[in-house]
């Protein structure tokens, strides 16, 4: 049977993919530009088909704590929001990381700071990969660049979250959330039965089974010697994720003399800019981080041996550029081009920036 190709928004793809992947629960709160996730779920009524629970919470704070409750009970649960809402979730995200609970958070970024704008942005990069909440922790962070990846990364994020008992985040921007593209949705999977959940998550709190000691979900430990061990365990887990789960895409890098590094919607713009630059005879390659944590530092360092300079293109004032600079250790020039406040750059702006900052 031929694959069914559908046309939909990135936000709608998240909702469809969540149902198809067998998600047990979604807990959300309306905020532009991601409200279609909750709206689509409400329209599709998965509680009547797969049995998926959908709750419109009283706040983003409540929604992320519902995720904590559901994830702590071993179920596959998620939330979605946009930048100001994700800021509100940071306390809960820190608790999820501290208690090592697998779950999915989706951030469809809009411009800030503050209430900012409802237009697209990538200004939550620092918040996503450098902490956001309190304490030493990392989220597994995936950055989709198409509606297809919005759909595909739901399952990937959950798989990684459960593999490492760690929260995962899809960091999209308003462009990816709102634009309509072709998408092939994953096959409908059955949700896990309660017995399968219990078998998959022997650590979870869902009413202790006969003969088992109580399971306690907590991030609290007042004995510093134990708390240090817990932190060391987390750091070891993060090192393992960094060793195993880096994902990126390279386009036209083999002969590249200049490299653009961009994620999400900026990678799409940069790809067009790259094509236009090559038509002018400038050999540009594109490296697109798919995981922004763990960051493809080694791949970028490798390309730095070959190219004369790297330009990052971001919808922010220069955030990912710091990780690129760290990756190449100042061995070659690294520049940033960004637009702020909800403005999305055109490809010719990117070429001009490349010429002005690196080639001239």
């Amino acid at each position, binding site marked *: 049977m031929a694959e069914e190709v559908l046309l939909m928004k990135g936000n709608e793809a998240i909702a469809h993919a969540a149902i198809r992947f067998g998600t047990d629960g979604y807990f959300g709160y309306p905020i532009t530009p991601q409200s279609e996730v909750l709206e689509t779920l409400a329209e599709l009524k998965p509680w009547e088909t797969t049995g998926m629970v959908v709750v419109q919470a009283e706040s983003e704070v409540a929604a992320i704590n519902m995720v*904590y409750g559901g994830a702590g009970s071993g179920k596959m649960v998620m939330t979605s929001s946009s930048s100001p809402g994700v800021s509100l979730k940071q306390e809960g995200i820190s608790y999820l990381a501290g208690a090592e609970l697998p779950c999915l958070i989706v951030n469809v970024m809009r411009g800030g700071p503050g209430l900012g704008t409802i237009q697209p942005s990538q200004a939550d990069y620092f918040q996503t990969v450098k902490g956001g909440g309190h304490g030493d922790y990392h989220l597994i962070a995936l950055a989709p660049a198409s509606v297809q990846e919005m759909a595909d990364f739901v399952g990937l994020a959950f798989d990684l979250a459960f593999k490492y008992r760690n929260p995962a985040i899809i960091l999209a921007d308003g462009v990816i959330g709102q634009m309509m593209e072709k998408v092939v949705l994953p096959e409908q999977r059955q949700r896990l039965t309660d017995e399968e959940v219990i078998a998959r998550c022997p650590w979870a709190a869902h*009413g202790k089974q006969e003969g088992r000691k109580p399971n306690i979900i907590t991030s609290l430990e007042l004995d510093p010697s134990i708390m240090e061990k817990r932190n060391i365990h987390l750091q070891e887990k993060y090192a393992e994720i960094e060793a195993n789960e880096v994902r990126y895409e390279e386009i036209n890098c083999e002969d590249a003399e200049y490299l653009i590094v961009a994620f999400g919607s900026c990678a799409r713009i940069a790809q067009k800019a790259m094509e236009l630059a090559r038509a002018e005879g400038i050999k540009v390659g594109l490296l697109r981080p798919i995981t922004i944590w763990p960051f493809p530092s080694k791949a970028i360092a490798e390309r730095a041996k070959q190219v004369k300079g790297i330009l990052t293109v971001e919808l922010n004032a220069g955030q990912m550029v710091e990780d690129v600079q760290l990756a190449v250790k100042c061995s070659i020039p690294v520049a940033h081009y960004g637009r702020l406040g909800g403005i999305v750059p055109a490809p010719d702006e990117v070429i001009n920036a490349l010429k002005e900052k690196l080639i001239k």
Partner: protein
Amino acid sequence: MTKEEIIKPENLVYKKPTLMNDNPMHYCPGCSHGVVHKLIAEVIEEMGMENQTVGVSPVGCAVFAYNYLDIDWEEAAHGRAPAVATAIKRLWPNRLVFTYQGDGDLACIGTAETIHALNRGENITIIFINNAIYGMTGGQMAPTTLVGMKTATCPYGRDVTIHGYPLKMTEIAATLEGTAYVTRQSVHSVPAIRKAKKAIRKAFENSMNGKGSNLVEIVSTCNSGWKMTPVAANQWMEEHMFPFYPLGDLKDKE
């Protein structure tokens, strides 16, 4: 009666609930928490729900409730226990799910989560320990601190022109369509303890019978925070707390 006769099973008049383990409690002598923990353990055992219960502990003195009752627990962020419990109950509908929260957790930082979980009619029970003070952090003013009552952050007494009025969350809960059973109890005397246990039992049964959400407030003492002996604290509670927080059922949707 010889020792051998006394220890015969038929002569047993009291025993510690099996769900209560031997971990030494961190609660101050005279504190109400221990009694309420025991009542919850007894009710869970009497309902036969030992292996189907999930408790949600708060931030506050009861943060370590999970150390004392051998059931599954999730420890919630400050005030968020009703949101945590909402998800557990929705995802595991045949489990007994309850939160255990103090006045600061429930009636201050978690006011929104409390009201909305109750008003959605989540089939959970909220056990609300109201001792009119922040115990864990050392006796600061709570949303339920009585007018005139002295705490570390209102050392000259709660002044309504500066601090506003104490909040009666249980009265608010009784007005919400989603609540099935809303009651205020105490554990300062044997008759009160028996009534409180009955209330917890009714609330837990409602939670399992799909009747809606349940709130059991226990007006409690914090003799350390109040800087009184346990006996004086009980007396003070009767004289000052009960007139403002009268005991009894506020709502019972039979």
